[in-house]
């Protein structure tokens, strides 16, 4: 993919002096995915043997018990329901946060005052854990999805806008001049030049924002419990802890981890491969 096609760097067949297959173990070891799988399996084995030795499923359920609880939860539909509720709220809050962040970054680009507004607000609110705003949000907006969306948007907003602004700042003067040379101004200039040129930073911001939002949501649900009739994954964990269904608590935690991994590998890595890697703009 990143093959350079310089005229002088084409290798001709008669330059190849030696060619032989690698030994099997080396071929396996060279694959990052297989190495990671190996680590994962090892961790599972350690978990299973330690819990079997401990033999206390109330405190520390084994990997197999957790898996069984996970499948139970998925089959009965409760866990699926909880996951979908969480993801729905998450996507809404994430989208709201990113929308506001892009507007703020564009405002920050237009004037010194706008820039100072964003950097000051970010310096103030970025260190404040979004979850700390939940009591206030509940007071203002009431119990329900609205408060969660407020807190989620807050968790995404600052890191994402800061990354986007840094990305815009890093766009080379040459590219800016090229864009203006074609008569691009205002919003078309932002869409056609600034956003793609800043995309590596924007993608980092999207990732960070996602991670913040996901953590904030689970924490909020743990504190907040049921909103509008159906709880999310955090509530599932809390509820099962109260009923001493610790295997299901572990199943809930595993779901949180797995959703994080799925989003990283099936969403962000794919976006990365199709955009910044393909364009040779890797961060």
């Amino acid at each position: 993919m990143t093959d350079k096609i310089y005229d002088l760097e084409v290798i001709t067949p008669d330059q190849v002096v030696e060619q032989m297959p690698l030994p099997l173990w080396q071929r396996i070891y060279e694959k990052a995915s297989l190495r990671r799988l190996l680590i994962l399996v090892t961790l599972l084995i350690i978990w299973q043997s330690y819990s079997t030795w401990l033999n206390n499923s109330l405190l520390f359920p084994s990997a197999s018990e957790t898996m069984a609880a996970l499948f139970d939860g998925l089959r009965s539909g409760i866990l699926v329901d909880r996951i979908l509720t969480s993801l729905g709220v998450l996507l809404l809050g994430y989208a709201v946060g990113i929308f506001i962040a892009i507007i703020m970054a564009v405002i920050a680009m237009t004037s010194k005052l706008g820039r100072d507004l964003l950097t000051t607000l970010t310096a103030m609110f970025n260190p404040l854990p979004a979850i700390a705003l939940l009591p206030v949000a509940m007071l203002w907006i009431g119990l329900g999805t609205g408060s969660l969306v407020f807190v989620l948007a807050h968790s995404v907003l600052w890191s994402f806008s800061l990354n986007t602004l840094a990305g815009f700042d890093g766009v080379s003067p040459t590219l800016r001049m090229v864009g203006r040379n074609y008569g691009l101004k205002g919003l078309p200039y932002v869409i056609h030049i600034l956003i793609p040129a800043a995309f590596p930073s924007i993608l980092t911001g999207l990732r960070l924002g996602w991670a913040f939002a996901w953590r904030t949501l689970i924490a909020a649900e743990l504190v907040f419990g049921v909103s509008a009739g159906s709880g999310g994954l955090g509530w599932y964990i809390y509820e099962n802890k109260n009923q001493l269904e610790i295997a299901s608590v572990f199943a809930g935690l595993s779901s949180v981890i797995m959703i994080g991994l799925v989003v990283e590998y099936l969403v962000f890595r794919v976006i990365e491969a199709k955009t910044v890697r393909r364009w040779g703009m890797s961060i």
Partner: protein
Amino acid sequence: MNSPLLQVNNVSLDYEDTSGNTKCRITVVKQISFSLAQSERCMLLGASGSGKSTLLKAIGGYIKPARGDIILDGKPILGPGPDRVMMFQEFDQLLPWHTVLGNVIFALEVSGKARGSQARDKARAAISKVKLERVAENYPHQLSGGMKQRVALARALAMEPQILLMDEPFAALDALTRTQMQEELLQLWESLRLTLIFVTHSIREALTLGSRILILSPHPGRLQADIESAPTKETMIHDILFGDHSSEVNSDDR
């Protein structure tokens, strides 16, 4: 001769420094006048600090003259526009998120010069002019520096600008590639009769490419000489540029 294509009338260019508590205006280019006819290959030659790049950017519309005006085809220049395409020294002037073909098509479409299949055909034609058909579907990061500059040239040609503004476009290339690019540019000029303004700090490059050479003196940039290009004039240019202090400054003729 018809009325000139470009007129630079008594142009001074300042830049403002407000980093301290004082507002400081610094003159980069002082009272330059010249006019340019169709199909001229005009070289702006000068040392660093002579304001040759700044003057080019002012013609490009990126900088407003503090005094004087620049008139293209009877109309004053108010801002950047696709009738004056810039080509830069930096290799990052191609949009990394478009392929070679995509870069040319994007330029045509976004500036309103051509759309759809017409843009595609024009882009292909321009790419074949610089002999890069085989990398048309590749992304810029896969190309060498010389190839990138050729794509930038193709993109500029496809735009069919009234003037092509070139800001030391070959200065970052190795000597062999630079010579090759200079030859190709001259061949293209033979067939297309473009109007060029080309900034360089190399006397040899100015003599090779130019039909006319404007020599700028530094601090602030002023027009020192306006001469027809001819190979015999190398010593003359040398004398104008360096006077009696030729040992102090190197001509940097890589």
